[in-house]
């Protein structure tokens, strides 16, 4: 064994002997002499970029102690006037660009740069401040990035790449525009960052700070960081970071029968089942859309007979299931499912603050981790957990998910088995572009969680074509017709997609001609619809028309005020057709001699559909927007409708107790969203049919007003 070679030097007159290769900085530290530094910390490779640790070794220039190896006979001075002056100037220059106090200084008063500036008695900065800000990045749920506070010390870059080996952080830009960047300069939330927190823990300033928990106190026992670090899904996370977020995650024990969350409630947490089982169901025993079939008594039967046509909505609905914010969907006939150990639920509520989609009750004594968004985000970025959740999804939910889409209900079990291993599960953050118009098409997407926006680019700006939610799909037009994307798709919130590559897609179409025909029909219909708004915009360039949003309407109820005698027959007919609850209020904006009453316009751009936690508001294949019976009454669609055309109404109902097998139902008042359903079972809506004065009309406004202008 070779004895270690040592070197001897003096630092500030103190003799020090250290191993060869030791830096002057470390040698001084061993001798108890503190040299100020910003870009260096003990667990990282020194790079000497800040130069604050400059020392005088008797050479022509000062040298950075963190990178200068100690040499025999070296005389180092760390505190001379020359060194102090240089350090003072360096700190002053860094402070000139630093937003003081920065976020970290404000939060915990430990910004290393500001502490150093205070130690150097730097009160006034002689140098001009930066004029153009480098910006902030708030896209991550857990870490706030303030590029202005960054001193380019690269501690975060080394932490990410050398300590955690994540290879996400790097440098971008040159000179005054230089800064840190995530992947290829993506927003942090959209990058491949796994939220391990190492960069934030490494940062000496407020450039990378923990967002923390805002005004939320979770019930249950706060989880000790040590315990969390023992759980497989937290092992790759920085302990300091978990410590900072420890109040955002609790362990909760539920006894069998305990309600974990209720449908329609607003929440901000997700649950991970560590042990036990939970029953998930929705309370929708009462139909508020389809009413026929239950008529009793002569008059009711006569009315039922006289008002009945075929209810095509019913047949379309039969093949669907109810999407919920969990790893499985609920069957329509019996909306009940079981969640098991290892399942995660409440993801949409937690990430996008949507109402709870279902009531969840502990089916046996269970232990769950309840967490806020920052911790869920950390968890979801954990590769181990991610792969486990994805595997659960492939095993248990993929088949249900595919079969819940009527078009794919005919897929054989064998082909689903093939897809199970081939599909890719992708995640996107809010505002992230999933695919762009004009790009070559290589895959087909099925929405698993969240909502996406489909837009088409035009010289005057983007035109929104549609919003798609869980169970919807896109990408078929490009794959079937031209090989390029015909529209841009953007995530509206936290979105997860099932992606089927072009080869599997082609194989599916070859094996199942019905699916090919169905997709071709949908594709044609979507292209037709997409052409329609453009034609309308070109033919009716009236500002009032646009201001009132009439161009957006697919089907508009208009009352000709020169014919209408204000008899309210339309309102009464609407109420009679919908269990006494009218979906039409004879009041609204006027356009020319028409009143546009408060009644669903069947918008081309149905904002109401965005966020429905159970997908009960949806577009039928014939493009009408309908609210299905399993509405849980959260009211989000009513809030989203820009025209106030969705109302919440109380309906009395008997709610069976799912945990007791449906026995002893309780009488409750349940709110449900109602809006005009165009009386789809009839050729003509009841309001129009019942108008004795030929004043009520359901029209396509673009076509109607273009024709009336021609007349």
């Amino acid at each position, binding site marked *: 064994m070779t004895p270690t070679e040592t070197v001897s030097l003096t630092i500030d007159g103190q003799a020090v002997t250290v191993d060869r290769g030791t830096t002057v900085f470390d040698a001084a530290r061993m001798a108890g002499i503190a040299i100020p530094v910003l870009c260096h910390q003990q667990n990282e490779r020194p790079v000497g970029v800040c130069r604050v640790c400059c020392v005088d070794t008797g050479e022509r220039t000062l040298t950075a102690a963190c990178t200068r190896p100690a040499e025999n006979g070296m005389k180092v001075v760390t505190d001379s006037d020359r060194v102090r002056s240089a350090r003072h100037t360096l700190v002053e220059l860094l402070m000139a660009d630093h937003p003081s106090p920065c976020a970290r200084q404000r939060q915990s008063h430990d910004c290393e740069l500001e502490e150093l500036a205070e130690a150097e008695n730097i009160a006034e900065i002689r140098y001009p401040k930066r004029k153009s800000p480098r910006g902030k990045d708030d896209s991550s749920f857990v870490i706030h990035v303030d590029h202005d506070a960054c001193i380019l010390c690269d501690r975060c870059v080394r932490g990410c790449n050398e300590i955690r080996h994540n290879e996400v952080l790097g440098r971008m830009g040159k000179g005054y525009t230089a800064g840190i960047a995530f992947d290829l300069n993506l927003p942090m939330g959209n990058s491949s960052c796994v939220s391990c927190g190492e960069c934030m823990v490494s940062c000496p300033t407020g450039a990378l700070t923990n967002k923390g928990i805002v005004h939320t106190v979770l019930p249950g026992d706060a989880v000790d960081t040590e315990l969390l670090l023992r759980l497989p899904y937290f092992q790759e996370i920085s302990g300091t970071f978990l410590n900072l977020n420890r109040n955002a995650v609790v362990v909760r024990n539920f006894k069998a029968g305990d309600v974990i969350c209720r449908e329609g409630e607003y929440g901000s947490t997700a649950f991970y089942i560590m042990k036990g089982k939970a029953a998930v169901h929705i309370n929708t025993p009462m139909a508020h859309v389809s009413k026929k079939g239950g008529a009793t008594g002569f008059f009711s039967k006569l*009315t039922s007979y006289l*008002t009945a046509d075929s209810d095509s909505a019913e047949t379309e609905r039969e093949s669907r299931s109810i999407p919920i914010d969990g790893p499985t969907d609920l069957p329509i006939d019996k909306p009940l499912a079981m969640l098991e150990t290892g399942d995660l639920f409440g993801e949409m509520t937690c990430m996008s603050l949507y109402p709870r989609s279902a009531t969840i009750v502990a089916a046996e004594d269970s232990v769950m981790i309840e967490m806020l968004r920052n911790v869920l985000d950390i968890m979801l970025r954990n590769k181990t957990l991610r792969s486990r959740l994805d595997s659960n999804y492939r095993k248990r939910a993929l088949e249900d998910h595919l079969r819940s889409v009527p078009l794919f209900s005919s897929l054989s079990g064998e082909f689903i088995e093939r897809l199970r291993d081939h599909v890719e599960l992708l995640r996107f953050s809010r505002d992230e572009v999933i695919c762009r118009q004009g790009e070559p098409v290589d895959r087909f997407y099925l929405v698993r969680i969240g909502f996406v926006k489909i837009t088409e680019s035009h010289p005057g700006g983007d035109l929104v074509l549609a919003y798609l939610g869980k169970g919807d799909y896109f990408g078929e037009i490009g794959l079937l017709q031209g090989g390029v994307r015909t529209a841009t798709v953007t995530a509206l919130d936290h979105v997860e997609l099932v992606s089927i590559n072009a080869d599997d897609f082609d194989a599916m179409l070859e094996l199942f001609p019905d699916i090919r025909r169905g997709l071709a029909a949908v594709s044609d219909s979507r292209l037709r619809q997409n052409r329609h708004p453009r034609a309308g915009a070109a033919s009716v360039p009236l500002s009032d028309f646009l201001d009132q949003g009439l161009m957006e309407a697919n089907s508009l109820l208009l009352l000709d005020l*020169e*014919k209408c005698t204000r008899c309210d027959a339309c309102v009464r007919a609407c109420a009679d057709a919908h269990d006494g609850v009218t979906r039409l209020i004879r009041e609204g904006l006027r356009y020319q001699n028409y009143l546009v009453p408060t009644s669903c316009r069947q918008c081309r751009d149905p904002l109401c559909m965005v966020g429905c936690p159970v997908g009960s508001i949806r577009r039928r294949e014939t493009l009408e927007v309908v609210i299905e019976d399993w509405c849980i009454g959260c009211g989000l669609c009513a809030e989203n409708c820009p025209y106030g055309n969705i109302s919440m109404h109380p309906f009395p109902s008997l709610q069976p107790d799912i945990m007791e097998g449906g026995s002893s139902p309780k009488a409750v008042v349940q709110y449900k969203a109602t809006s005009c359903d165009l009386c789809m079972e009839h050729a003509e809506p*009841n309001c129009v*049919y019942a108008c004795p004065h030929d004043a009520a009309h359901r029209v396509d406004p673009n076509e109607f007003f273009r024709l009336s202008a021609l007349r």
Partner: protein
Amino acid sequence: MRIDSTHRPWFWATLTALAGLTGSYILYRAMSGGQPNGGSVPGLLYGIAGYALMLYAALLGLRRKVPVWRVGRAQTWMRGHLWLGFLTLPLILFHCGFLWKGPLASLLMILLFATVGSGIFGAALQHFIPALMTRAVPLETIYEEIPHIRRQLCDEADKLAGSIAAMEAEDALQIEMEPDLRSRFIAIYSKSIRPMLAPDKEMKRENKLETLEYVFDSLRKMLPDEVHPMLADLESICEEERQLRVQKRVYLWLHGWLLVHVPLSLALIVLGAVHAVMALRY
């Protein structure tokens, strides 16, 4: 219902029917030696047809009670009510041979004329008034909501007037105004503006449907510029109140005639049935 070009088929059908009936009546009258009789076969047929059309016309009321029943579009029923209902008059006249004797027959004829007359009057009102109301009442609301909205307007006006008088409405609005001006404003508000907003029963005749343009013009001249936006708000409240009163009045005209037409129709049908029984039995 607006009688427009879409009524043309009904018009021609009714006119043709009327011409045919008139021709048949002339023939029948000639064949009966100028002594037509309601009890004769043609007379009875006219009577039955006329009464059947009366019943059909009356069914419109029932049809409207069941708006969702798919028994024909309501507007078709309404057109039938108008045009076929109108044919009852010549049919009954042909039935009685333009002669009516006895109190019941006389009463029936009076009722028939009154019913058809009130119907034509109502049809005329429904033809013209909706367009008139649309132009005159841009701020139209649901009729049942009018009292509630008027109360709100009244409260809002009092609040605004109080703010102008006290100048305490907005924190930023600290306007120098002589006390004399304030008391003059209060006097004008109490005398000329507030009565406009009073409930109908308390309103003086001279205030009804009057615009207050000149009052606000003089107020604008009298009060400082800073107050003018609040005066504009007050003026728009008064304008809305005026329009709501116009709406109420016009609405009553639009639907009030039914209070005459419907009872007359019912009486006609009941007495018509009595007449038929009496005539056939005795």
